[in-house]
Each structure stands twice: as C-alpha cells, then as structure tokens.
C-alpha cells in the first residue's frame, strides 16, 4: 500500500514538474506581453517592418525615455517610422520609460549585462561608467559613413579614450523661458537682459502678487537648472567645468556668493513654495497655465512653451560677474545620446541603424522644437518654432558649454552634489555649508 502511495505521489510530482515546465514557457510569454501594456510608467510601441519578413530578418530592441508625455515622443515616432520603412529586414521594437525610472532601469540592465541592442543614454560620466565596464559597442567603424553629416565636435561628450561610443541626438542648453504677458503687467516688454533688471522684474512681480519662478524640488535636477547658470555666470564657464571635472575645488568664495543669490531669491519669495513637493511635469504645467513668470529649464521645452496660450520668449541667463563670465557661456551641450550594447548579437547592424535613427530623431526633434540639431541641417526649416530659433541664435553666439553637472560627474559624485543642491533649495544650509560640504565630500 505504501509503495502504491509512493508511486502515485512520484507520478503526481513528475506530472507537476512537467506541467510547471509547460506553464513556464507560457508565463514568460505572457509576462513579456503584459510588461508592454500594463506598466503604468512604461509605454511600449512596436513598429513592425512594413514588408513581409525575409530569411535574414534581424530583430533590434531599443529603450528610451520618449514616453507619450515627453516632448520628444512625436519626433521619435516619426523617425522610427521613417528608418524602419527604409530597413524592412529589421524587426524593430522600442520601449519608453519615464526619465527618472529609466535611470534605474538602464543601470540595472547594464549591471546584469542585459542591455537592449540600442539604448538611450546621457553623455559624459553617465555613459562613461558603462563604457568602463565594457558594456558599450565602439562606434568608430560605423561613424566613418556619417562623418559628413555629424561633426566630430558633437561627439566630445561620448568619446572615451579617443573612441566614439554614442550617437548624439539633439543638443540642449538651459534656457530662461518667460511668460511675456505676465512680464508686461510689471512693465517689461522683453526678457530682462541684466541681472539687476532680472531682480527688479522679480521684485515687481512679487509686489504685484505674482510668482516669478517655478521649480520642482522633488526632482533635484530641476534645481540645478537654476543653480548652475547662477554659478556659471558668477565664476565663469571654465572654472565651473573644471570643478565638475574635479580639476578644481568647490572651495571657492564666488560659489558661496552665487548660492547666496539663490537663497536671496528664496527668501524674497521668488519661488513657488508649492514647488518643493511637486514633480517637474506639474511645475511645467503650472508655468504653461500661466502661474509663473519664468521657468528655467532645458531647451527641449521650446515646443511646449511656444504652444502655450500666452506670449512667450526664451533667453540666456544674464551675466552676474562680467570679470569672470560673459554672455555666450551656457549650461548644456549634446548630451542626449543613443548607444549600442556590446552584448548585442547584431551590434554591427545596430550601430549603422543607430546612426540613421539618431539623424532622423535629431531632424524631427529640431522641427518639433524639442532640441537643437547635433547633426548638420541640410533641409528646410520653415516651421521651426520661434523659441527654438531664438535658442539656435543664442547657441550660434555661444563661446563655451559646461555639461549639466549631474551628467558631467560620475554617479556617486553626482548624487552627493544633488544632495547638497536639494539642501540649498530646502534652505537647510547656506553658501558656506554648501561649499564646505562639497569640498569635504568631493574635493
């Protein structure tokens, strides 16, 4: 009897295991499907090749941050349609994840060596960490076919040890966006050109019961969009770039001064107090709804701001100390990048495809006003919005770029820096605390 029971149990176990095996296959398929449709912050689109599959069909997968709410989404969609139509032999799949979540996702994938064939990344130290760990495919060979369209100077932020690892998409700088209707109410018909004028304008706005600036405190990078131009226009682009690259120290009296200006803005009520608990999307929406007079953020917002119901303008942040800084010194540069995973079984094909895709994304992003072109413009641009054109004008006169601090620094240093920036916005520390803290923790 015992033997019989044991045999029945053994048979049941074998059946169970077999059943588990079968289910496993099904489950993994269904999981893959549900990931693309259910995840709240993830939007997936699949652009199938327009022609029937051939024998040499190649599958490529891309991850990026162009979710439907992202200003670059239409450009990505159009570019992907165009490039996949030209490559029927490629089955292309792409998946977009919201900016902050994407940083976590891509780092985890790189750690597990499970990067998709093509992935969006930021230049500078962000991509540098992946390159150091041999996770990124070198694009030197593929680049040879595109040198005429993509100037080598645009590859500076994605070049490591003399080798190119990224395809730049658009170039963006920090811009001071203004609601001209609100400015007109306090007697300004154009964006203040000097720092004194800017302060005067803000004082008048506060006196009139209006909020000059909106800034998200929940996403600390947004605070850096205010602090970095202040630092640059006080200590100069050269010095700031050296500090970001750890070639110079944070222990600098002018940094204290610049932070002092920022805290003065907070004390005078220039910032929306609600901003500290809001995300960037909410703050941006508030600006687009006419709640703030200024919104200082990346120029990828040009398209959205130009479409707002009020009269808008964009300008460069004014100079504070003209002995050390000048107009034309900007925060930003070509940072948005596509890279190819070294682990991709079709890395060579992916590399060529990435260049073509990068060129197309740059093209459509420029036309949509969500960035300036890193690639040469050999097409008509009659519909580019006036704000993007104004930024192009500013960039034409640029004398120096300092890459966004959290992109220029390695991951650990960037988080320490962001931590101190967050403390400044929360008025936890003053200029002295900022400088001494960063000097102790970074150098």
């Amino acid at each position, binding site marked *: 009897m015992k033997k019989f029971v044991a045999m029945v149990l053994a048979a049941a176990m074998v059946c169970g295991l077999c059943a588990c095996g079968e289910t496993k296959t099904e489950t993994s398929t269904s999981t893959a499907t549900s990931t693309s449709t259910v995840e*709240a912050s993830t939007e997936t689109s699949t652009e199938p090749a327009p022609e029937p599959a051939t024998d040499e069909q190649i599958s490529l997968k891309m991850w990026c941050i162009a979710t439907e709410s992202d200003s670059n989404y239409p450009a990505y969609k159009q570019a992907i349609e165009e490039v996949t139509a030209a490559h029927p032999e490629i089955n292309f799949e792409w998946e977009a994840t919201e900016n902050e979540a994407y*940083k976590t996702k891509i780092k985890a994938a790189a750690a597990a060596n499970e990067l998709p064939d093509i992935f969006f990344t930021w230049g500078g130290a962000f991509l540098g960490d992946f390159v150091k*760990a041999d996770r990124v495919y070198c694009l030197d060979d593929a680049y040879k076919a595109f040198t005429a369209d993509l100037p080598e100077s645009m590859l500076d932020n994605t070049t490591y040890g003399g080798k190119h690892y990224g395809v730049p998409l658009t170039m963006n700088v920090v811009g001071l966006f203004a609601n001209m209707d609100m400015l007109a109410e306090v007697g300004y018909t154009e964006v203040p050109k000097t720092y004194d004028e800017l302060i005067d304008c803000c004082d008048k706005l506060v006196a009139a019961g209006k909020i000059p600036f909106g800034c998200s*405190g929940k996403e600390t990078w947004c605070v850096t969009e205010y602090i970095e131009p202040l630092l640059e226009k006080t200590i100069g682009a050269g010095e700031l770039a050296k500090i970001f690259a750890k070639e110079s120290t944070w222990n600098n009296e002018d940094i204290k001064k610049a932070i002092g200006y920022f805290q003065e803005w907070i004390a005078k009520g220039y910032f929306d*107090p*609600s901003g*500290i*608990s809001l995300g960037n999307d909410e703050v941006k929406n508030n600006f687009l709804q006419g709640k703030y007079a200024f919104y200082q953020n990346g120029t990828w917002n040009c398209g959205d701001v130009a479409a707002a119901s009020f009269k808008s303008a964009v300008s460069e942040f004014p100079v504070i100390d003209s002995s050390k800084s000048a107009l034309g010194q900007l925060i930003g540069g070509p940072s948005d990048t596509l890279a190819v995973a070294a682990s991709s079984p079709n890395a060579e094909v992916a590399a060529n495809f990435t260049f073509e895709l990068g060129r197309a994304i740059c093209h459509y992003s420029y036309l949509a006003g969500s960035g300036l072109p890193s690639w040469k413009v050999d097409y008509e641009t009659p519909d580019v919005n006036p704000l993007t054109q104004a930024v192009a004008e500013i960039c034409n006169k640029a004398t120096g770029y300092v890459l966004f601090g959290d992109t220029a620094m390695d991951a*650990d240093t960037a*988080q320490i820096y962001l931590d101190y920036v967050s403390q400044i916005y929360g008025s936890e520390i003053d200029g002295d605390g900022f400088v001494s803290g960063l000097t102790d923790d970074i150098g």
Partner: protein
Amino acid sequence: MKGNIRMNKKVKNGINIFLFLLPGLALFIGVLIAPIFMSFRYSLHDMSLLDPLTKENYIGFNNYVKLFTSGSIHFPKALLNSLLLAALSVFIQLPLSLGLALLLGKGMKGERGFLSVYFMPVLISTIIIGQLWLKIYNPDYGLLTRALWALHILPKGQLIQWLGDKKIALASAFVPILWQYVGYHMLLMYAGVKGVSPDLREAAMLDGATDGQINRYIVIPSIKPIIKVSVIFAVTGSLKSYDLIKVLTDGGPNHATEVPTTIMINQLILRNKAGMGSTIAVMLIVLCFFFALVINKVFKKED
C-alpha cells in the same frame, strides 16, 4: 536479518523523503538562501554594480560601520523612520483593524459591503494610491487643504506643504501607508473572529457578559495567533516599505521621509554602490528576522 530489512527500509524511506524534498529545497536555496548569501558577499566589498568581485575591493565589515557613521548615507534616520512607521502600524493601524474586524465579525447589516469597502485599498495598485494621495495633498488644489478651508480649520488662502514641509512630510507620507493596509489586517482578523465558536459567545451572553467583555475575554484571546501574524506582517512590512514613499516623496524633502529601502535603491542604482546597497539589504533581512523572533517571543511569554 529482520534488523537489516528494517534498516534498509529506513534508508529507503530517508532517500524517498530526500528525493521528494529535493525540488522544493533546491528552489528554497536558489531563490532565498543563495541571494542572501550573495548579498552578504557583496556587502563585504567596495564595488559598483558593474564591477566584478575581487580581492582588491574586499573591505570586510567597513560598509557596516560606514552605514551608521557616514553623514551622506542617512541610514540611522531612515531606520528610525521605519521603526516609527512600525510603531504606528502596531499601535494605530492594527487596533483600528481589530476594531473593524470585531464590529463586522459580530454580524451586522451590510457586513459584506463594508468588508469590500475596507478591503478595496489593498486591491488598488500602490502607484495609483500614491497618485491619488498626491492629488489629495497638492497644496494648490488638493482636497485636504480645500476641506480644511471649507471647515474653517485653516484660514482661506493659507497653503500647507503636506509633502514639502520637513516637519509634517513624514506624517503625511505615513497616513496613506497606514490607511492602505487597515483592510488587509482587518480581513485576517475578521476571518479569525468568524472562526470563534458561536456557542462560546452565547454562553458568555447567558452569563451576562457585555459585547466588550466577550471581545476582551473570548474573541481576542481566541484570535491571538492571527494578531501575532498581523503584528509580524505590520512590523516587517514597515521595515520593507518602499513603493508609496517612492511615489509620494522619494525620501524628500531633504531626506525627511527616507526609509532604508529608498536609501538602498539610491546607493545600489543611483550611486552605483552595489556593496553599500547590499549592506542595507542584509541589514533589512537581519532586522526583519530579529523583529519576527522578538514578536514570537513576546507572544509566547504572554501565552
């Protein structure tokens, strides 16, 4: 001869038992023990997610020391926040759940409906709950501020930064967490309350016991094992809480609402410090086990 046969049978039975246990054991070791062991190994190294384990980056227990001494990690504060959440869960959330379970378990009109309503927050995705509460807390148009204005508790026009003010952000972030799981614990306890024999109730009633006395001397002692499970879940759940904090405040403003898991993700992913991230993971495992054992001991002592 007989002894040999008996011995052989015993060995065979042993082998059979081992074979039957093997798949489960392999799964248990592969899914639970091995990752804990690997996390412990990583925690002894100063390494990034992209680095391999080497002798060069072996640093012994330095990460554990740094966890409590480094000013830039904020672990002690995060741990304190979690312990506070655990205390609130045990002393506010669970009594509330117990009260509801006792009320519903007694049998009342619309019992099923109430049960569903209280349990509903558990069924809703935490991300959605987070977004919902973000809207409630919004200083400009949030329901809470508007309600306080309407009730004249707050002067009209005065804004409160529920999630942006360091002094109240932690409490504001804890409210949705406590609210969400009241229904979960209530359901556990409700099942227990329903399991109490009606004969006991009736006998007590015949002896003239009031509802409160019945609950105190009959129902609650009967569902003690369930209360113990709820306490363990509440405490370990508080130590592991992450999703709602991530959505509501992401540990801010200025680390006011940081919990160990948000710090772990910050170290592990954003700062590329796999060694330190693993140290926090190991600490969490140890703390969860420690509290589970302590709670077991406390309940045993009471028994």
